[in-house]
């Protein structure tokens, strides 16, 4: 094989996956002795991981041109063993725009988090092993989304679950880390077993494991075993996406893991679950035409959205709060995908991308706070904006993005989701979609409330005396956050570019199952539908931003000219008390309005709901396992009736 042949872009997907696994292997070979550099105890291993993720990202970026813009679907048979006798006998990688879209998200998040890890993991033991697991996790997720073979998807799911569990438990001394890892392991393995069962049931019916071939065989020949398989697969991927009823695990795992890993678990692992669900419903079974299926996804999406945002409001730990928000945002994605329109899918994918960016940013900011202060308890922090101004600004960008404040990216995608939902409601004359739109709109405000709470109790308000000596985080960590922040802003200001380059090709790929099947060399009976991304709303962020800037400039000029912050000499007495806070004349004492005390007016009216929810999320692993079993049973019943 000569070099030109090797650099053919059809090989890039497998290179992208292999380079990560190779990275894991090489880091492992490098041994476990920490290096002498106090700023990078992993030494060379950190750079290996960084290079591996960087190369992987680069390879995937190079694929944008042929796959996203050219509309090509790359079908890659490992070892050139393809189809024999009408059956796929080889192991395949199949990269359509949807796979590439998710792969790009994953690679970006992994790369940025690797940059962040170098300085963030300084205080930990066993950092060399951290990078082994890190590369494994990254490789597992990437392999999952690029795979064209359902059994390989299962294997990748197992790899990523293991790596994620191990990394969740990585900081064994952190409060609850082991416990979180164990819970995640139990329910995660139930999910994985469910996926395996689903895979094997499908194999028993169709004697193939190739996704494209399954997709060409399943529709039209559904029987009870297939329906059972669907239910198992759905539940399996739900546990990976942490949607209701698996959200408590997300909260535990995201909260306990190191921040750089929380980024992956929330920004990347959940996406793999969403990817699985899209593949399952749109491709394998092609059930999205069914009202029952749309109802299920929209319903579960809306419930995830609302339940998780209210759970987040009740949290008093920074990372746990972020974790619940993560699932709330995944609820948006699921709702949008469940709308079953091209616009909906495009909006959902857009939001999935934004979620990776802003949630990554927020978790990294939480990690920065943890790194400097040693706690993420909202009740103990405060006033950090004076000590960590850059982190504050970056956090605020993330917070505005997630709460859908224009012109950041969260708003652009949420705005599309509202429209898609309402348009769908009007088209089908179905009031359920309208309810979903209203829930989405209200959830957005509650998200804002929740982040106002974090802003007030971590970054603003008063600085507790014990954090007098806190410093800004090292440049490496700020760089990682900065990359994500810039992406958050850019994807918010240029929604049309993002849509035409990334989400619309992916959404088109979702709609055209036939091409996916045919690219692999199988016969497809599904025609490729005409898709339209038309929407009724108007929003031009660039113009708005321009006007706002002019207005702000005019105001600032006026303010500066008019001595906006004029100070005059005091008349003498008590100058030192002049700049103290007003406490009714009392001497200044440390008095911070903690996160738990905010929004009493809201919580009081919903107290029964909050009490009920608190009791429900009992923290006992048996309960969560029971939820999983019940969800499985319900899913089986629903599929039997609905499909």
């Amino acid at each position, binding site marked *: 094989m000569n070099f030109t042949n090797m650099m053919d872009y059809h090989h890039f997907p497998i290179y992208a996956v292999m380079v990560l696994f190779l990275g894991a292997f090489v880091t492992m070979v490098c041994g476990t002795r920490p290096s002498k550099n106090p700023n990078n105890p992993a030494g060379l291993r950190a750079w290996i991981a960084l290079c591996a993720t960087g190369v992987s990202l680069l390879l995937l970026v190079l694929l944008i041109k042929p796959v996203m813009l050219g509309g090509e679907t790359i079908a890659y048979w490992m070892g050139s063993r393809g189809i024999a006798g009408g059956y796929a006998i080889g192991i395949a990688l199949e990269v359509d725009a949807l796979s590439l879209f998710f792969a790009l998200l994953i690679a970006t998040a992994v790369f940025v988090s690797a940059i962040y890890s170098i300085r963030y993991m300084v205080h930990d033991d066993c950092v060399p092993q951290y990078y082994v697991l890190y590369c494994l996790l990254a490789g597992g997720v990437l392999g999952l989304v690029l795979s064209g073979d359902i*059994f390989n998807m299962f*294997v990748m799911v*197992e790899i990523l679950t*293991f790596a994620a*569990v*191990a990394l969740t*438990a990585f900081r*064994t001394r952190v*409060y*609850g880390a*082991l*416990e*979180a*890892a*164990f*819970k995640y*392991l*139990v329910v995660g*393995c*139930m999910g*994985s*077993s469910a996926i*395996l*069962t689903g*895979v*094997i049931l499908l*194999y*028993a019916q169709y*004697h193939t*494991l190739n996704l494209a071939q399954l997709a060409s065989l399943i529709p039209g020949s559904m029987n009870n075993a297939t329906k059972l398989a669907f239910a198992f697969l759905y539940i399996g991927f739900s546990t990976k996406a942490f949607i209701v009823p698996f959200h*408590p695990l997300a*909260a*535990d795992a995201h*909260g*306990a893991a190191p921040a750089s890993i929380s980024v992956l678990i929330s920004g990347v692992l959940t996406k793999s679950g969403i990817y699985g669900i899209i593949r399952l419903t749109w491709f394998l079974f092609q059930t999205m035409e069914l009202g029952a299926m749309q109802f299920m996804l929209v319903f579960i999406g809306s419930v995830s959205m609302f339940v998780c945002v209210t*759970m987040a409001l*009740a*949290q008093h730990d920074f990372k*746990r709060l972020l974790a619940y928000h993560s699932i709330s945002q995944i609820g948006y994605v699921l709702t949008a995908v469940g709308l079953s329109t091209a616009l909906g899918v495009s909006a959902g994918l857009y939001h999935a991308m934004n979620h990776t960016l802003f949630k990554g940013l927020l978790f990294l900011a939480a990690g920065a706070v943890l790194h400097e202060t040693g706690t993420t308890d909202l009740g103990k922090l405060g006033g950090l904006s004076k000590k960590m101004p850059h982190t504050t600004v970056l956090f605020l960008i993330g917070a505005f993005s997630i709460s859908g404040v224009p012109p950041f990216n969260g708003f652009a995608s949420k705005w599309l989701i509202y429209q898609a939902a309402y348009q769908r409601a009007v088209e089908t004359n179905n009031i359920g979609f309208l309810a979903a739109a209203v829930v989405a709109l209200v959830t957005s405000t509650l998200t804002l409330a929740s982040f106002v709470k974090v802003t007030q109790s971590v970054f603003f308000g008063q600085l507790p005396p014990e954090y007098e000596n806190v410093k800004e985080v090292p440049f490496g960590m700020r760089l990682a956050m900065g990359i994500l922040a810039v992406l958050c802003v850019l994807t918010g200001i240029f929604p049309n570019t993002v849509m035409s380059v990334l989400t619309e090709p992916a959404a088109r790929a979702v709609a055209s199952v036939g091409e996916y099947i045919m690219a692999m060399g199988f016969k497809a009976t599904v025609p490729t539908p005409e898709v339209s991304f038309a929407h009724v709303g108007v929003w031009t962020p660039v113009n708005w931003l321009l006007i706002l800037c002019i207005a702000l400039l005019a105001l600032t000029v006026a303010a500066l000219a008019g001595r906006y912050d004029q100070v005059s000499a005091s008349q003498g007495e008590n100058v030192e008390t002049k700049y103290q806070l007003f406490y009714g004349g009392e001497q200044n004492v440390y008095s911070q309005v903690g996160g738990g005390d905010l929004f009493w007016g809201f919580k009081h009216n919903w107290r029964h709901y909050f009490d009920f*929810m*608190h009791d429900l*999320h*009992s*923290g*006992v*692993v*048996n309960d969560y*396992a*029971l939820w999983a*079993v019940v969800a499985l049973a319900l899913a089986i019943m629903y599929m039997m009736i609905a499909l």
Partner: protein
Amino acid sequence: MIQFNYIAAFFLICLGFYTIVTKYNLVKTVIGMSVMDYGVNLLIISIGYTPGGTAPIFTAGELTQASYFVDPIPQALTLTSIVIGACVTAMSMSLIIRLHESYGTLDTREIRRLRG
């Protein structure tokens, strides 16, 4: 007689679920997970079974039109699955040891610092 395999697999999976849901001891939870895994493995291997088939091991010369063997793919899958099952057990046991060190108990009802 293959039906018995399916019934047994179903029974094992349910038994696994039952153990995980009702037993409050961490080790028993892990046993439940293993039992569930075995149920799935049994299901896989039964699916590939063909009555009267031989092992799918042959050389090119032996392959004739009348060759009759069980489906090899499920067997390969089972191997993968067994390995993964062993990993799960190992991982969870190591977690349990650390959990016992820090919590001093194996009762799931007491290992619930994270809740709400």
